[in-house]
């Protein structure tokens, strides 16, 4: 019966249509071109190669190729012919040197291996800027940038040094002798040698004018101090005895005047009775605002008037200006606090306007802070710009009075604000000479492009503050046919002097106590400081008028330096480009930050694709006559009303293969050298922008991820109330996760037990650790597309969380149901409190990843580490799926040789590979990787101890991230050494583990964040 059943293939079959008939007869709808396959029959028959033979040949050749591949290559081993005495292959050497690049000064130690620098470490013995920021950490990669200019160029062709020196000197001479001006446009110069040589040039060429342009100008501040203290220099901050900081738009932990205060700031903010309090008034969310105990929104244009209000409130001799009600009440409260903290407080002003600085200084003077928290004797010499000089020079240029323009490490065409009109008139100069490290936008219009050396190839003497003199020494020979600015100056002056001798001579002229070689060894020596000059009387009523006049309504735009690129010097540095911004968590971009309410008003939005990638709308921004098109919008809480913000230094077209076409150029719409502009109009444009934003969840949804409390609770309440341990109901009563574990405990008593403490109260989110980790562990750069897909390879990320208006307490009080509650919890407050949390592999002692690995590629060590054996890994990615912290990174591609990553991955060329750490494997495609707690450093330190026959000393080594951390948030050590700092910290009442209720028992632990709220 069953056999007689007929199944129809379709209706055609049922009605027996001709199509179905023909289909039933012919298997293929069209005749197969078999004759094409087999050629003519005769030939086929006469051929001696049958199909079988073909397969035999195929098999044989495959086998032969396989066998041939098994043969090991001959590896050469080439020793030195004459080995330098100080080099032992395999053992690093460290050299102290000083950096001044892109406005950043730092005293650092450079780690070299077999003669090539591979890592920059902080020089922690140094008082001024001995730490490293993300940019300083990343600056080493710029040394090995293949897009560096390698030969001197004249008229677009490769030339030679003698020729270009002769030609450029002739151009300068010609301009000078014809009565035209010679403009020297440089960044700030803190080298006494360079200043001396520029002075000699000015003596020789009477029409030479020296203009300084640094990307960000502090000319207004300098104008004030010229009047007040008689010197064109900024005072230094001294937080050693500070108890209260009130900052107005001054991002002093990030991008401010160049003095790094994060280490003292963090030290002073250890929770306790004398914890430093920090109040921030700001127009956009900066990392200083994120760290503040109280943060208030203040429009940039109202900054000066707010300071004037505070000045008058504290007894300053100006009439109280009008400020809006909420700001007034905030300022009144702050005034009270400032009065109470007279002599130990510090008021800072941001921006580039004289009035703000005057009032900030006036307040400090009223409170008796000058000479205590604000040092006017020891001055900061990193800034000497003068906007008036620049505008005069522009006028001369426009009127054709300039004969030659010499740019020194200034990419004027890109970075000088369009509104100044300097670059538009550049073609009126007879000769344009640029000293540059790459063929940038300015080199494209210059007659001569002279390649500059990297600071790691240079000799120099630097004078960053009145009491600090630093020396730079080369750590590698010149990679290319380059010269440094001082060498070019010497050549122009016709002095046949070696740079080393010139530096030594300048050093001896400073009459310092330390011998030159000691200074060279230490990197920095201190210099005696003359007593501060008497303070001149300042006319505050004039400033008050200016402050009131500055107030404006309407939309304002703030131009800021991003944490990654600063003033744009590092625009082609892939490590820094890939570093997510601490606040927005966006990498490889700049964007117009708009508040959620402003976004609604403009009708623009950010939205997430199904793969987790963030997109945004474009807008056109108009400031005055200038327009910037296709600016992507990023919606960002924490902005002042009607304020938007845009980072400078992006939008390069000739930075190099990684940095080209990243972001938009803010200089197009900048209002001269002011840090903000008013009268902005924004219009929505078409198209969608693809962001590489790696954090989608911005709030903690009421969970204990970052544990936070107030100073009041910390001081008065039991830690169990603010550092709650989750307990589970069991038959033995309430137990914590670690007391109910199913896991078999490891023996962690016998040897070392490496642990790390991360103090969330100290972390300011600066990202130095991220870049330090990149450099130390050969972390690949993956580029924007991969970042968009959340395939970032960073072993260490810094999560940023905003507070939400909706909390469990609010929900309970107002009787809000769970669904609504959680929906609202996802939304950040309009002026959120911000926390940063560095997260790397937590090195769980009960590790979920270890149990699921089918090949035991990730296993536990007796020293509390979670090992990852790359060569054992087969890439199932079970471990990453099972990791509660999402810290495992999978190599989706072979980043170091896949052609898709040629533009972004520095390890794709021989030069970029030179920065790789030879002690760490470069991981292959298809394997998982993650933080190893710098096991290479652990093993190295253990071996050093064994060689000396002693125990490992606490603090003798640390991980790359902890070493780079200027604020000391990360402390690494052996908790089995009971005297170690980390053992102490593990017992701290603030200590907790991330997701401790999961019971993973990590070796990394966190310290509760404490806010000193008013």
């Amino acid at each position, binding site marked *: 019966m069953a056999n007689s059943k007929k199944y129809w293939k379709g209706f055609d079959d049922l009605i027996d249509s001709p199509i179905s008939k023909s289909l039933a007869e012919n298997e293929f709808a069209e005749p197969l071109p078999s004759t094409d396959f087999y050629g003519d029959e005769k030939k086929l028959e006469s051929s001696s190669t049958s199909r079988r033979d073909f397969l035999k040949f195929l098999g044989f050749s495959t086998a032969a190729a396989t066998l041939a591949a*098994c043969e*090991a290559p*001959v*590896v*050469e*081993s*080439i*020793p*030195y*012919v*004459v*080995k330098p005495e100080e080099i*032992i*292959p*395999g*053992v690093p050497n460290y050299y102290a040197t000083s950096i001044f690049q892109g406005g950043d000064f730092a005293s650092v130690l450079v780690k070299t291996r077999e003669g090539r620098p591979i890592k920059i470490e902080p020089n922690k013995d140094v008082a001024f800027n001995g730490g490293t920021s993300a940019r300083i950490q990343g600056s080493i990669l710029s040394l090995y940038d293949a897009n560096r200019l390698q030969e001197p160029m004249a008229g677009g062709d490769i030339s030679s040094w003698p020729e270009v020196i002769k030609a450029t000197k002739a151009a300068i001479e010609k301009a000078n002798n014809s009565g035209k001006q010679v403009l020297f446009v440089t960044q700030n110069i803190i080298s006494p040698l360079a200043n001396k040589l520029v002075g000699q040039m000015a003596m020789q060429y009477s029409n030479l004018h020296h203009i300084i342009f640094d990307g960000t100008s502090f000319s207004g501040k300098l104008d004030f101090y010229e009047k007040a203290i008689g010197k064109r220099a900024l005072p230094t901050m001294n937080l050693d005895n500070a108890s209260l900081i009130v900052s107005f738009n001054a991002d002093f932990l990030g991008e401010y005047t160049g003095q790094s205060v994060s280490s003292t700031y963090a030290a002073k903010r250890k929770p306790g009775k004398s914890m430093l309090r920090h109040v921030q008034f700001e127009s956009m969310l900066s990392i200083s605002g994120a760290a503040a105990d109280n943060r208030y929104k203040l429009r940039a244009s109202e900054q000066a008037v707010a300071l004037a209000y505070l000045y008058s409130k504290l007894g300053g001799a100006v009439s109280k200006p009008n400020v809006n009600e909420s700001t007034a009440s905030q300022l009144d409260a702050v005034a009270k606090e400032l009065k109470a903290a007279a002599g130990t407080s510090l008021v800072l002003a941001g921006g580039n306007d004289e009035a703000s600085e005057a009032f900030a200084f006036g307040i400090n003077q009223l409170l008796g802070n000058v000479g205590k928290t604000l040092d006017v004797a020891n001055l900061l010499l990193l800034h000497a710009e003068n906007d008036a000089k620049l505008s005069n020079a522009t006028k001369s240029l426009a009127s054709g009075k300039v004969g030659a323009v010499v740019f020194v490490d200034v990419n004027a065409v890109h970075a000088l604000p369009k509104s100044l009109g300097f670059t538009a008139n550049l073609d009126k100069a007879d000769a344009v000479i640029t000293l540059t490290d790459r063929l940038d936008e300015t080199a494209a219009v210059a007659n001569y492009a002279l390649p500059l050396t990297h600071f790691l190839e240079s000799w120099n003497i630097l004078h960053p503050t009145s009491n600090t003199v630093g020396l730079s020494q080369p750590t590698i020979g010149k990679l290319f046919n380059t010269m440094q600015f001082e060498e070019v100056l010497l050549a122009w002056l016709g002095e046949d002097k070696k740079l080393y001798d010139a530096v030594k001579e300048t050093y001896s002229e400073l009459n310092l106590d330390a011998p030159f070689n000691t200074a060279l060894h230490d990197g920095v020596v201190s210099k005696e400081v003359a007593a501060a000059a008497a303070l001149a009387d300042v006319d505050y009523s004039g400033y008050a008028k200016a402050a009131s006049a500055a107030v404006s309504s309407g939309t304002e735009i703030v131009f800021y330096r991003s944490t990654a690129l600063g003033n744009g010097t590092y625009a082609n540095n892939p490590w820094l480009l890939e570093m997510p911004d601490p606040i927005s968590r966006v990498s490889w971009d700049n964007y117009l930050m708009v508040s959620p309410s402003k976004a609604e008003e403009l009708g623009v939005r950010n939205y997430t694709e199904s793969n987790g990638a963030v997109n945004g709308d474009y807008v056109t921004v108009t400031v005055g006559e200038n327009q910037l098109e296709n600016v992507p919008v990023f919606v960002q809480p924490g902005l002042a009303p009607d304020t938007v913000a845009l980072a400078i230094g992006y939008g390069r077209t000739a930075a190099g293969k990684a940095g080209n076409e990243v972001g938009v150029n803010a200089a197009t719409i900048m209002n001269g050298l002011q840090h903000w502009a008013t009268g902005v109009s924004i219009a929505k444009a078409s198209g969608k922008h693809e962001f590489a934003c790696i954090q989608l969840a911005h709030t903690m949804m009421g969970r204990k991820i970052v544990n936070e409390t107030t100073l009041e609770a910390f001081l008065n309440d039991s830690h169990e109330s603010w550092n709650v341990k989750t307990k589970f109901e069991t038959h033995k009563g309430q137990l914590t996760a670690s007391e109910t574990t199913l896991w078999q405990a490891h*023996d962690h*008593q*016998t*040897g070392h037990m490496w642990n790390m403490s991360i103090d969330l109260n100290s972390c300011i989110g600066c990202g130095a650790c991220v870049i330090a980790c990149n450099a130390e562990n050969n972390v690949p750069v993956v580029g924007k597309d991969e970042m968009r897909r959340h395939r970032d390879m960073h072993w260490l990320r810094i999560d940023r969380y905003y507070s939400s208006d909706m909390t469990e307490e609010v929900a309970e009080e107002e009787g809000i149901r769970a669904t609504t509650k959680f929906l609202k919890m996802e939304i950040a407050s309009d002026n959120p409190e911000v926390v940063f949390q560095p997260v790397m592999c937590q090195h769980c002692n009960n590790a979920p990843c270890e149990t699921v690995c089918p090949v035991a*590629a990730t*296993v536990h*060590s*007796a*020293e509390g*580490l979670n*090992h*990852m*054996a*790359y*060569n*054992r890994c087969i890439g199932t990615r079970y471990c990453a799926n099972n990791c509660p912290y999402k810290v495992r990174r999978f190599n989706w591609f072979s980043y170091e040789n896949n052609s898709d990553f040629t533009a972004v991955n520095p390890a794709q060329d021989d030069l970029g590979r030179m920065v790789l750490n030879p*002690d*760490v*494997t*470069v991981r292959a495609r298809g394997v998982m990787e993650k933080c*190893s707690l710098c*096991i*290479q450093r652990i*093993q190295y330190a*253990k*071996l050093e*101890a*064994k*060689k*000396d*026959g*002693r*125990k*490992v000393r606490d603090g003798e080594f640390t991980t790359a991230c902890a070493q780079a951390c200027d604020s000391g948030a990360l402390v690494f050590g052996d908790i*089995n050494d009971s005297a170690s700092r980390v053992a102490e910290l593990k017992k701290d009442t603030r200590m907790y583990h991330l997701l401790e209720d999961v019971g993973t028992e990590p070796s990394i632990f966190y310290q509760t964040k404490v806010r000193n709220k008013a």
Partner: protein
Amino acid sequence: MRTRFRLTLKTRFYANVALVLFLFLSFFSASAEIEGDVANGKSLWNANCAACHKLDRKAVGPALGDVTERRTVEWLIKWIRNNQELRESGDRDAIAIWEEYNRSAMPNYPQFSDQDILDILAYTIDGGKPKEVVAGGDGVTLAPVDGGGSGPAKLPVLIGLGVFFVLLIMLLAKVKNTLRIVKGEDPESVASELSGFSRGLAKNSAFVTLATIIIGVLFLHQLYWTLMGVGMEQNYQPEQPIAFSHALHAGENGIDCNYCHSSARHSKHSGIPSANVCMNCHMYIDGSEITDASGNPKYGGESSPEIAKIYAAIGWDPAENAYIEGHEEMPIKWVRIHNLPDLAYFNHAQHVNAGGIECQTCHGPIEEMEEVYQYSPLTMGWCINCHRETEVQVETNGYYEDMHAKLAKKYPGEKITVEKIGGLECGKCHY
């Protein structure tokens, strides 16, 4: 061997009459007749004089091959024993030499007996003779004598045996056939008899099964080891740019490994010595008189072309005894023998310095190797085995102080091996 020098000179290697006559004449003209033990003289020379003097040419000090012709034995004894005293006594010759050599004083050797000095002088005569024997037009060079080191050639013997067995088989077949004929049966050829036998075997299922199993197992065994051997380079012995002999340096001369491979104590790399380290000795030594069994120079002779390669690399002019100004250094491209994959981290200092392991443990009898080869397999299994067996020096190294007490409690009565302190953990070598 104590040889008397008395006009006739019996040497081990050179027995050319012309040469003897030549020497006879030359020594006859020498000032004194020297009786000395050449062998003792040589060892004293090497220990005390060779650093500064050469026989055939000037080094730090003058060439001494013909010194007995230039000076009297008495004067030489005085000079060698205490040249300062001799100078101070106002000896003109002594002062002249001192001046000639930039007033660099030669050490005094008061410990030498007269006979010692005579021995050395005898050696200067013996050692100073030309070694290449070319006398007149038909100079006699010694034909190399077969050292007898190689055993009897094996292949002909095997072929001979094979032929013998084949003949034997044929003979037996003949005998068998003869017996068959005697019994009145038909004779069978060897071939047909063999094929009958093999057919019988093929039908024997027990045999077939056994043979299949044996062949299969052998095949798999071979396959396994072939595959396991992929990338393994045991016995790898590449040709090096300089025929450097560890047997000579580490073996015969007994130079400590760490002298040249000084990084091994400090670094992960043992380090190939740079040419300037070679020059510490080779500034004075540019050849070796050591000969092989047949009397040919073993290491390139008196003026070794191999050592000349170092000179070429670093720019040393042996004739002038000075570095060549402005010489462009030519790195020596050694071929690396011990190659670990990039994924494995190995540190020499850990093993040599902290672990106190002898170089030979991994590198084998290096002091016997004329040409170095990879002695150990350098596989992970080999590493692990050693880590399982090797005891850690917990008692003597301060690093282990605390750990030792805890380990002793944890493993009572057991050896504390590398394994027990975590030496088998992945992350110890792979990161």
